[in-house]
């Protein structure tokens, strides 16, 4: 998901979405997203990988999966509102706004 190769990256996300659709619960989402949140919490905007970590969430939202979007909304719109959460929300305002 952090690969530079765009085609590879999109394939991985697409594969993840298909996998997610086979699960009734949200374990795959939790298992995927929590480590990224933990990593982002220890980073700031000057770190080299900060932008690519944020981009993971842009790609997840771009999958247009209601499961993903509603999970992200539940986990992002809570306190404490760390800086990376603000940036994820802002970058995906079009998707979150419509569902809010």
């Amino acid at each position, binding site marked *: 998901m952090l690969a530079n190769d765009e085609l590879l990256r999109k394939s991985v996300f697409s594969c993840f979405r298909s996998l997610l659709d086979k699960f009734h619960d949200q374990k795959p989402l939790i298992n995927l997203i929590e480590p990224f949140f933990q990593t982002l919490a220890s980073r700031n905007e000057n770190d080299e990988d900060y932008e690519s970590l944020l981009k993971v969430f842009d790609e997840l939202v771009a999958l247009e999966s209601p499961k993903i979007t509603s999970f992200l909304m539940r986990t992002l719109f809570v*306190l404490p509102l760390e800086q990376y959460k603000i940036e994820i929300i802002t970058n995906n*305002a079009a998707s979150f*706004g*419509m569902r*809010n």
Partner: protein
Amino acid sequence: MLYDQTFTSIGDQSRHASLIYCLSQLSINVSEEHSGYFVSESIELIRKYKDKNRERLIVVLEILKFFFQNSLIDFEKFVTEYNYIFIPFLFIENPEMAELVNNLLKALLKTQNKDVCSLYLTSFFSNLHTYLHNNKNAACYGMNQESGLDPYIHILINTLVYGSQEDCNVALDFYLTIFKLVAPSYIIPHSLKLIGPLIRVANYNYPIEIKEKLVRILLSAHKLDIGMKPFEAQLQLTYLRLVKESNGEKQVFR
């Protein structure tokens, strides 16, 4: 939650700016169904902080201004329901506030729909009139600045020219209010747009009372010296026609 976070971040410039941007982006992407909720929440915050916390008030006004400037939804319900909230801010002696509220009103009252102009103008003017009645001799700082009249010109002209006879009467009263509240130097940039339509409406088949009011407005415009020279020839013809229409009975026409 986001508004609260924005308020508590006022000391931290970077975080504060990112939260304002975040809220602004969300506001213009919220569904039409939920936009009403966003606006009413914002209005409640304006009421809450109006006399208590200038910094938080400005945050809310800035975000609302962005929303009205950039949202694609129809504002009609917001205009008639909430325009009264912004009127008192036009009378606060604070240039930053005046400019902010002017830009907000300019975005809120903008419409390409001629049918809606009358609705907007009559609603806004009714609330302005009430405010002025309850606050006699209040100085309107908001209108007395560069671009101070920008929010109203479009809806005023359209109401005057295309509205009903009743709407035209309201528009004329608004003219009189502008001439009372606003210094000539701030009216002059708009004189071409303001005077031309008055001459046009003088030729409408309206009762003599409306035409009398219209001529009184033109006389005020002459007294205020707001740039009547381009209209001299047309005005002479108009006055002659009105004298003939009234069979010379109306003093004001003579």
